[in-house]
């Protein structure tokens, strides 16, 4: 193909403006039927080649890579979900354990407090009984002492009354009448 004017070396890089050398008789190349057979044969060869490469090698490879990635992502998500479930279960178990421990501690506290209360009550009761017994004994002692003292007072009073009567009258009174008079005045 002869270039007519030393070529187009203009700044428009996209342009190549060679003049047609007249090899094709000025016909319009896409409609030149003499080239059709060659083009169809090359198209058939290369398109079949491309189809075979695409269907046997390219698509399985790229599709496999995409699928592998998809599976990996799904697997990872499932694993993350499983781990999350696991940790949630652990948390729940921990909380359950905590609650039961707390309730057990409360029960133990209640029990020991009740026991301590009961013991204290029993001790107090025993002490009170002891004290009451001592008090009763002491009262009894006081009463007997008072009775003894009172009977001594009567004797002393009778003696004193006999002496007083003797001093005043010079007569020794009869003991029975003195006693009766003392008793009457003690009662009086």
């Amino acid at each position, binding site marked *: 193909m002869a270039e007519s004017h030393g070529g187009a070396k203009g700044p*428009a890089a*996209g342009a190549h403006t060679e*003049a047609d050398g007249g*090899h094709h008789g000025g016909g319009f190349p*896409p409609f030149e039927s003499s080239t059709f057979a060659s083009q169809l044969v090359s198209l058939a060869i290369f398109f079949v080649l491309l189809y075979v490469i*695409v269907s046997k*090698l*390219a698509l399985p490879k790229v599709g496999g890579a995409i699928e592998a990635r998809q599976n990996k992502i799904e697997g990872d998500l499932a694993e993350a979900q499983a781990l999350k479930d696991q940790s949630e279960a652990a948390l729940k178990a921990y909380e359950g354990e905590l609650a039961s421990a707390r309730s057990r501690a409360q029960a133990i506290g209640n029990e020991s407090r009740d026991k301590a209360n009961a013991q204290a009550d029993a001790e107090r009761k025993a002490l009170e009984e002891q004290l009451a017994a001592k008090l009763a004994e002491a009262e009894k002692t006081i009463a007997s002492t008072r009775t003894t003292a009172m009977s001594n007072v009567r004797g002393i009073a009778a003696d004193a009354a006999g002496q007083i009567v003797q001093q005043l009258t010079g007569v020794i009174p009869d003991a029975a009448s003195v006693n009766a008079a003392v008793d009457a005045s003690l009662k009086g």
Partner: protein
Amino acid sequence: MKIDPIHQFNIEPLFTIGHIGNQTIAFTNSSLYMLVAVAIISLLMLASGAQLIPGRLQSVAEISYEFVASTIRSTAGAEGMKFFPLIFSLFMFICVSNLVGIIPYTFTVSSHLIVTVGLALLVFFTVLIYGVAKNGLKFFSIFVPHGVPGYILPLVMFIEILSFFLRPVSHSIRLFANMLAGHIALKVFAGFVAMLGFSLGAIGWVGGVLPLALTVALYALEILVAFLQAYVFAILTCIYLNDAIHPGH
């Protein structure tokens, strides 16, 4: 200075492979760029590793995979995944060869009608053969829309059948015409810059700024078109295959 926007579409035989009848079958520049596209796709898909955490190249490969897969699922349903290799091959072949073709001085495979017709007919016959093999005569119920009154049904059926058989035409010409027109427009605007400069001197070079800016903008648009036409081709393939998989309208 003459702009020749057609020259870039020339088919140059590089060496002869053989003969079919009186036709010479040559390995042409077009064949070379088909080979380049196949090589780039293979490299992208196979040499990009299969790591758990993808690198850049592997990300591109996986994005292409997911993109085509989701396109099929949304248009033809899960059953359409049967045709995943076909649609992936079509999409990647057209997309990569278009993107390679947009590099200056390269050749664009899909700027030739015979190539896009070949691909469109491949889709057409895949739909037809799979549709009939899977659904039997029920496949042809796609020509009979529901809820159409009896008296205009023949007309509607005629239109449906016509549109079915015109599918490969529109399917192929859409891609071909887009690529052809885009490349011609790019060439014309870019050539205009050089033409202004060489014929008018300094004033021409200054004046060439405008077409240059336009060329840059057009170039960006063509990159979009290169991808978009591949996507359109693939999604139309999905829609046509959906007819074969689910013939009820």
